[in-house]
């Protein structure tokens, strides 16, 4: 679990988060992990090593010594709550159980050599206040002078279009730009995925939340991030492939698209097919040539109607380069911000448990790596407590069902706050409920992507929007026959049982997790549920303010945020950046320079389904259309004939330009 070290620095509270074992270096040197700039501190003063829940410090021969709670020490265990004193500074630490390690895709843990060179500085302090050093004073104000950027010697490139994030949202934007006529040389993508893959992070989240490549995702046929037209969709492609191989199941996909969702279960593509389609399109548009490895630290307006982006090249991509040489600037006229899920927190009681038992891996959030649990279940059997319902719970249940085929001694306790008695009601319709969960094919009603509900939401005032989205969204799962059967079987055969109530506490006793439920209504006694593992599927509470890049941006430019309503599902409480209907970030305009955003960072704004492939494509379409209106270089208006021409190029696998 990551450790967070905090201290006071000229009246300001500073903190940095470190992942891994260390050693982490504390000292006066700018190359240290924690920089304490004071004459009483030696250049390399102390090294901190983390081993499970135990933390050791070693004084590296400092001039003025090191003390723990007043005792002079050279090599000692540093317990939680104790004050580590170095010169005038007092340091403490805590465990950052609060944050799910969604960000672990990036940057990949640096390979740690036995003897570290200056190039091996860990960058994984992503969540900490790295701003103290880079870009420093240059970025203090709202506008940065181009002359100063050039004088810094760190300016890596000046281009027209810059996509920040390098994930699926960036990909859709760049794909549109290329197809609308922009050449690859005018575009750069900043991201941290080691293999430059646009689906690195999404693919990881799928894998850990138990969607193997042959499984079908929750997305429809025309949700094609590799094809801006949505034709041919995944269903037609699968049909053609099946029929070419003489497999008659191909017709099933076509019939599904024809009858869904009323007459048949909705068609959804296989994860592996979506991955492959990304790869093919990435190659066609020259994605790899546009890619630059970099963790974006900060963004500012320039004095020539553009933007300067400060980023740090993770050390694994610039081996041998000193930290200062890996800090760079890129300047562009048009930016797109698609950084995906911001810092995400565990539920409070899970946080408490993880703090109290930092070395117990029996309690996890479904978005954390937890394959080990299923492996162990397959070998030894056991009891799993699943918390929450919804799509992720369905996947986890399916995985346990598969484990049960290898080892029938697995039981599941399914805990929810209360039973679902009836589905949400909107207009003349009611959302169906089956097996104690509301069902809808995708995470929003379909008309949110391009139909009546999209229009309604766009035309609504901000307060109404959050109310509408509260009704349309919420916790749902897909109506899949296989999942319905699993639940019915489980309940009938007795290996699955539902419980309702709010969690009062979680404790670890005799190698098992005891979840205590609060008394309810007339039944005031508390109930203990004992399980070997707890998998939390209740979702994540994402916060823009805890993501350094976005926190800095919103603070400096005082960016407006979307309104949220209280008491909905976790995602309905994420107040995204306020954007226009064309996804331009309100308040970031800099003369001709513009910033757009896409994905979950725009949650609860004018468009509901922002965190979906089709939604990312929509955001891309609208922003690139706006670029066309602005007569941005290379961007066409993309009328019918150009569209047809580009589509034919797509079909024949030729580069857009």
């Amino acid at each position, binding site marked *: 679990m990551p450790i967070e070290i905090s201290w006071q620095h000229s009246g300001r509270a500073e903190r940095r988060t470190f992942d891994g074992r260390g050693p982490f270096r504390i000292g006066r040197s700018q190359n240290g992990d924690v920089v304490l700039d004071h004459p009483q501190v030696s250049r390399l003063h102390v090294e901190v090593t983390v081993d499970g829940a135990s933390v050791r410090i070693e004084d590296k021969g400092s001039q003025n010594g090191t003390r723990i709670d007043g005792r002079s020490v050279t090599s000692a265990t540093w317990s939680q709550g104790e004050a580590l004193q170095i010169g005038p500074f007092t340091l403490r630490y805590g465990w950052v159980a609060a944050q799910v390690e969604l960000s672990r895709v990036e940057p990949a843990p640096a390979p740690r050599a036995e003897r570290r060179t200056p190039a091996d500085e860990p960058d994984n302090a992503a969540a900490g206040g790295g701003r103290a050093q880079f870009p420093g004073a240059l970025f203090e104000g709202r506008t940065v002078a181009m002359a100063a950027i050039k004088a810094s010697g760190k300016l890596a490139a000046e281009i027209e279009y810059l996509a920040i994030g390098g994930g699926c949202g960036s990909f859709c934007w760049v794909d549109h730009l290329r197809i609308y006529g922009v050449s690859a040389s005018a575009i750069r993508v900043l991201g941290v995925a080691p293999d430059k893959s646009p689906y690195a992070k999404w693919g990881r989240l799928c894998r850990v939340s138990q969607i193997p490549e042959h499984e079908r995702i929750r997305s429809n046929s*025309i949700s094609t991030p590799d094809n*801006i*037209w*949505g*034709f*041919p969709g995944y269903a037609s492609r699968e049909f053609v492939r099946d029929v070419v191989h003489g497999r008659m199941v191909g017709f099933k996909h076509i019939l599904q*698209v*024809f*009858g*869904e*969702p*009323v*007459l048949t279960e909705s068609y959804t593509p296989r994860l592996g097919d979506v991955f492959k389609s990304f790869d093919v399109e990435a190659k066609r548009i020259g994605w790899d040539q546009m890619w630059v490895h970099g963790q974006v630290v900060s963004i500012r307006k320039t004095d020539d109607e553009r933007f300067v982006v400060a980023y740090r090249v993770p050390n694994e991509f610039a081996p041998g380069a000193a930290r200062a040489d890996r800090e760079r600037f890129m300047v562009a006229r048009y930016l797109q911000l698609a950084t995906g899920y911001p810092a995400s927190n565990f539920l409070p009681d899970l946080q408490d448990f993880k703090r109290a038992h930092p070395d117990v891996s029996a309690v996890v959030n479904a978005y954390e790596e937890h394959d080990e649990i299923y492996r162990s279940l397959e070998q030894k059997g056991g009891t799993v407590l699943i918390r929450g319902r919804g799509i992720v719970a369905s996947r986890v249940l399916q995985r346990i069902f598969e484990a049960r085929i290898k080892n029938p001694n697995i039981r599941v306790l399914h805990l929810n706050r209360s039973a679902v008695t009836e*589905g949400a009601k*909107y*207009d*003349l*319709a*009611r*959302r*169906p409920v089956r097996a104690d969960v509301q069902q*809808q*094919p995708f995470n929003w*009603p*379909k*008309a949110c*992507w*391009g*139909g*009546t*509900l*999209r*229009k309604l939401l766009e035309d609504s005032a901000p307060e109404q929007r959050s109310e509408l989205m509260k009704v349309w969204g919420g916790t749902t799962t897909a109506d899949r026959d296989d999942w319905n059967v699993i639940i019915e079987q489980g309940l009938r055969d007795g290996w699955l049982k539902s419980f309702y109530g709010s969690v009062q506490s979680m404790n670890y006793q005799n190698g098992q997790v005891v979840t205590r439920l609060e008394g309810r209504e007339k039944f005031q006694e508390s109930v203990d549920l004992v399980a070997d593992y707890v998998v939390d599927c209740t979702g994540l509470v994402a916060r823009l303010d805890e993501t350094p890049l976005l926190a800095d941006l919103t603070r400096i430019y005082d960016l407006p945020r979307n309104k949220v309503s209280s008491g909905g599902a976790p995602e309905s409480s994420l107040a995204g950046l306020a954007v*226009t*209907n*064309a996804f331009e970030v309100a308040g970031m305009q800099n003369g001709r320079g513009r910033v757009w955003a896409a994905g979950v960072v725009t949650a609860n704004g004018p468009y509901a389904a922002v965190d979906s492939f089709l939604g990312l494509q*929509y955001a891309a*379409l*609208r922003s690139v*259309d*706006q670029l066309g*209106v602005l007569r941005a270089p290379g961007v066409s208006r*993309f009328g*019918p*004939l150009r*569209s*047809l021409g580009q*589509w034919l190029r797509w079909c024949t696998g030729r580069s857009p330009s």
Partner: protein
Amino acid sequence: MTPTLLGRWHTRLILFFFIGLPVTFLYAWYLSAWGLSNEYTLAWPFSEVWLRLPPVELSIFQDPFKFLFALLIVGLILDVGYIQIQRFHWDQDWPFAYQFFFSWVEFFLVFYAMDFGFLDFMFPDGRIPFSTAIWHFTWVFIPSFIGVLALIQIFLVRWRFKGGELGRHPIR
């Protein structure tokens, strides 16, 4: 599909102009020039006759256009009802199966309206026989259905995000 009312109307009109009218033109021409004459039908298209412009029977030539026009009007009116049906769906969508089914409902509605004489003001010289009407409709329906499944979005990238409406999104 997740159409809006305006989107339904736009899409219907675009299909009318770009598929309905051209197909009807060819069909009406064929019908009025050769279709009713055994001599020509058998020969066509193998003889050289098809190269010459055959004399066109104007009254017969007009009929398919009138029929198509009646279909358009009925469709535009029914669209108001379809949008109401959508409101009963949680997803507020319009499955392709419905599109298929209701297209034929529209055909039979117009055909029997004509057959029972309600449209005699449009067809003063006699009604269209069933076999002719159904062939005509089939030739219009197939490409139109393919149109909404695939063709339109190849030309108009914004169409699918606008519930079938034409044009661009306003920049605000």
